[in-house]
């Protein structure tokens, strides 16, 4: 799956801004970004529901509407509920299956797979958030697709469900499928995804293997308290580290605690405290996306918050 200069504008709002990336078969690609970053919009364009203002998105080399067997090419779970509450789970899937000549047994199979076989004939309107999400996953898997596009699939799932979907997605990727899923939970992505694409305000911020992202995110610092802190600071700086002095303590970045201890011993300086500290993955992710956050979450719903960046389109609103 390839997106090339993908751009989507809603009136004055630039939701997706010149995105170019690809997702490969055989791995799980995570699509990360804060609220309003344009993840859902990008995914709707992948399925052909929204028409790009500019650029293209191709799955298996073709535009979404050019597939002869669309459900067999792309399976999608979208953000908003995409089902009629008056139908049963079975008849919902059945009506989608019929468009492509997919048989009843396949419908039963995906119902079984997502754990909804027992409630298959209940009205979808009575389903819980998690059950609705499972039905969405069933619909995405219906056509045994080579590419899966899942918008925040863990939304509404309980812990059991999260584990289930994690291993499901990893299994699907292991079968050689392209798995592309969005989330704004960095920690969840770190476990599930092999490759990560980070967007902010519609723009591409990172496109790299998850391992590299984690490596870069691991900023290790050491907090030091010692008898002659000023002298030790000069020694540490001389060894090539960055130092931040504050009172009788300092934060050292770029030198291990072993190294600092050795330097102190050599200069007869007594160490009171020597504690390695590692910034969390979340901190690294937040730092990366902070400047591009559209809406600050200073209350329950981020979208109700103030615009963090006054230069944004909605800053004056």
């Amino acid at each position, binding site marked *: 799956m390839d997106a090339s200069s993908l751009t989507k504008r809603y009136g004055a709002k630039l939701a997706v801004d010149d995105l170019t990336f690809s997702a490969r078969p055989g791995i799980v690609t995570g699509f990360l970004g804060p609220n309003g970053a344009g993840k859902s919009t990008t995914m*709707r364009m992948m*399925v*052909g*529901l*929204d*028409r790009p203002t500019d650029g293209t998105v191709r799955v298996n080399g073709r535009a*979404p*509407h050019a*597939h*002869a*067997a*669309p*459900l*067999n090419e*792309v399976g*999608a779970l*979208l953000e*908003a*509920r*995409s*089902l*009629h*509450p*008056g*139908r*049963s789970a079975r*008849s*919902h899937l*059945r*009506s*989608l*299956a*019929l*468009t*492509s*000549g*997919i048989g009843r*047994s*396949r419908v039963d*199979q995906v119902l*079984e*797979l*997502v*754990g909804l*076989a027992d409630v298959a004939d209940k009205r979808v309107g009575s389903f819980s958030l998690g059950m609705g999400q499972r039905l969405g996953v069933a*619909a995405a*898997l219906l056509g*045994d697709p*080579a590419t899966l596009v899942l918008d925040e699939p863990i939304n509404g799932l309980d812990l*059991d*469900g999260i*584990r*289930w*979907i994690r*291993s*499901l997605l990893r*299994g*699907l990727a*292991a*079968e050689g499928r392209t798995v592309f899923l969005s989330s704004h939970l960095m920690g969840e992505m770190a476990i599930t995804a092999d490759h990560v694409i980070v967007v902010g305000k519609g723009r591409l911020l990172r496109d790299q293997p998850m391992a590299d992202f984690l490596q870069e995110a691991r900023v290790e610092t050491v907090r030091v308290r010692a008898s002659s802190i000023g002298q030790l600071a000069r020694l540490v700086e001389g060894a090539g580290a960055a130092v931040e002095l504050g009172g009788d303590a300092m934060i050292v970045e770029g030198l291990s605690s072993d190294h600092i201890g050795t330097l102190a011993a050599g200069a007869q300086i007594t160490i009171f405290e020597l504690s390695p500290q590692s910034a969390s993955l979340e901190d690294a992710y937040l730092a990366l996306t902070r400047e591009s956050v559209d809406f600050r979450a200073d209350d329950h719903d981020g979208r109700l918050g103030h615009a963090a960046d006054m230069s944004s389109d909605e800053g004056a609103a």
Partner: protein
Amino acid sequence: MSETTTTAGTGQLTQPTPAGRVDWHVTLPRVVASEWAKLWSLRSTPLVMAAMLAMAAFGAIIGHNTRHPAGLAPEDLVASGPLQGYYLGQLLIGSLGVLVVSGEYSTGMVRATFAAVPRRLPVLLAKVIVFTAVVACAMVAASVAAFFIAQAFLSGYRPTYALSEPDVLRVVVGTGVYLTLIGLLGGAIGWIVRSTPGALVTLFAVILVLPVLLLLFHGTRADHASAWLPTGAGAAFSTSLHTPGELAPWTGLAVMVTWVAAAYAVAAFLLRRRDA
């Protein structure tokens, strides 16, 4: 639920469907089958039944009330007299036409539908085919039933009509056709407007308000314009009484069909361009 949910049996996904062996192409007959299933898995049947019932009930009431011809209006005496339940019927069938489409948008189902059929136009076409097949059968049946119920009430009181008489068959079947076309018009408006209330208001404006508005501008021009509206043109085909300024029956049908076709042309054009 826990047994199936905690163990992700992804292996069973691929086994029955090795790539290349399946024919999961989207074709128009398949989309028609899907729309057929969709129509019956919702509670749309009550609207069809209500419209049929309205036709039959009006056939009985009008038949009963027009047994004695003295002092009756001409439209009650002609063959199409007992079919005046169409006036209520068109609101019900028009609403069904709207709901079949706008329901997809109000529930979000349209996103799943278009993810399965990204070309979109087959969905519009399939809905037209299924709706026409189901509603045309039901409405023609209802119209024929209303006609015969009324004749049963009239027999012995005043001369009854037979389907074999000139123009009677046209009027009786024509009323069913008229109702089907109104339903289809509702569907087209549903595709264009997308929201249920908006589409219902638009449809009712077209079939109820517009003709009345034109009455306010009383004069030959307004009368002429009214005859060219979908309702006026359709009525020329589905009623026996020919009033001056009205179109000829088959011209009327052609004009009404043109309206519906034009509405669908706009709907199809917008459907291809807009975000779902």
